[in-house]
């Protein structure tokens, strides 16, 4: 198969309505436990919308305008909500052993999203323009310098602004998008078999080989 055909076929699945907006789900993948990932993604949507509105008005705006300050508050609480639901989702996924059945890459990408979310949020904390921004900027520099990440200059507000509003969100959104697509393409991991289910599997397996 040539690579253009490969890209076409993969894209057809990746961008299909069935991948993104299913009309049916496995019986075990319903209820509040299966809403945590959606609540995380929805928090990200609120972050992006409030972030775009703030970025459009410039970085001084949210420190001096009441509307800007209110939006900054929405952005702040959406970050809390994003991490809150993401961690609950991670716990649900871990305790489900959700990497079973060839879903290891989906797990890997989910944890990578958490890893990228940390500097995304951190650069946002540096954009508040208050004492917390100053303190975090000077405190973080030593560790970053020691690990060889001096290029990531927490004291340079211009660089941090660019990373926070474009670079990190684009990387994070891409990771989340592929993660979601893989969840849908592979299907949600089924429950661990109940003991009697395993026993009957065993019996049928033995009888079929007889």
């Amino acid at each position, binding site marked *: 198969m040539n690579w253009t055909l490969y890209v076409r076929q993969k894209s057809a699945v990746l961008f299909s309505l069935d991948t993104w*907006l*299913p009309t*049916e*789900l*496995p*019986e*075990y993948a*319903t*209820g509040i436990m299966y809403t945590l990932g*959606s*609540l995380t*993604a*929805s*928090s990200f*949507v*609120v972050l992006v919308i409030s972030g775009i509105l703030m970025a459009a008005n410039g970085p001084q705006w949210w420190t001096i305008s009441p509307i800007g300050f*209110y939006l900054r*508050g*929405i952005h*702040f*609480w*959406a970050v809390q909500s994003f991490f809150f639901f993401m*961690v609950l989702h991670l716990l*649900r996924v871990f*305790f*489900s*052993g959700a*990497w*079973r059945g060839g879903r*290891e890459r989906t*797990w*890997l990408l989910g*944890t*990578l999203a958490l*890893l990228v979310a940390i500097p995304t949020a951190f650069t946002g904390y540096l954009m508040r323009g*208050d004492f*917390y921004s*100053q*303190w975090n*900027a*000077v*405190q973080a520099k030593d*560790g970053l*310098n*020691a*690990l*060889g990440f*001096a*290029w990531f*200059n927490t*004291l*340079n*507000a211009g*660089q941090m602004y660019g990373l926070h509003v474009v670079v990190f969100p684009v990387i994070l959104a891409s990771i989340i998008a592929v993660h979601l697509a893989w969840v849908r393409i592979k299907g949600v*991991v*089924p429950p*661990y078999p*109940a003991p009697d*289910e395993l026993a009957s*599997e065993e019996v049928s397996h033995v009888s079929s080989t007889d």
Partner: protein
Amino acid sequence: MYHPRTDVTHRYRYVPTDFVKHLLTTTAIIAILTMVLSAVFREPVRPALKIDAYATAHPRAFMTVALGDLDGTGKIANYGPPYNNGTGYVQDFVQRWVGVIHPVFPKQDFILTPLHEASHLDPALNGPLKLFDSASATQQAQWESAMGLALSNARVVSGHVLLPPGAYGPVAPLLQGLLKLGQSGLMTGALDRSPADYQFDNQNSLLFLQGKPLHDAATKLELKGNQWGIIHEEDAPYPGPWWMTIVTAIYQIPFIANASAADALALGFGMLLFIILMVAPWIPGINRLPRFLGVHRIIWAEYYRQHQSSSDSSKDAG
């Protein structure tokens, strides 16, 4: 463990769902929740520490910070890469290898250059500047040392630092001039001036404040590393970045907290733990752990209950 017969989703019953409605509902929930939280609780904010406010409230401490930058004993003056060629805060070879990519030389950048700029407004600074610039390094060091002694015995009277007599030469009028510049509110601009004149970078003003000024303010707010400061919000009781709890905990381990490369060790160790989490599916033992922990029985309680009752009823029927 992968069970090829039971891990295949098509073996399960599917139920109709409206995913458009589902996503719109979760997004509406978060949007309303965050709008209400922002309206009711606002958000944490504590005004930034400004150089003029600090110079006015703590004139002697301001001059002590400035003297450290001038005589090379301050943290940044002796920091090392990426700021300069010092050795005081070099934690490992990687830091040295990256090199000086954000050059900062506090004696010149924080003290002498701003004073030369200020001398256009205050010509009385010209004489001391000329004297200091033309003196030998030894002479400069003697003046600075005498100034350090004088500062430790100085009195503050209504925003002015009254120095006892000493052989501090031009250093006293220079630091008094810098104090005036600091109190005027013009010093932040003098420190952050970029060659292009457009200001996007506040590195130098933050590095000027990063020692005692910011640390004293942070200590009062319990924001320092040994106070679990990374995960504290400045304005209690707002939630802070609690997702950094594990890294913050690593900083509290005495072996790491007391190490000269504490930051490199804490962040490196935190990264190692995260990598273990990322590759958990491939680690024998950990990848089978969830099954034995049994939490999945709560997650799929409804599914198991329904299947238990259906298998019971089929047995009964049989």
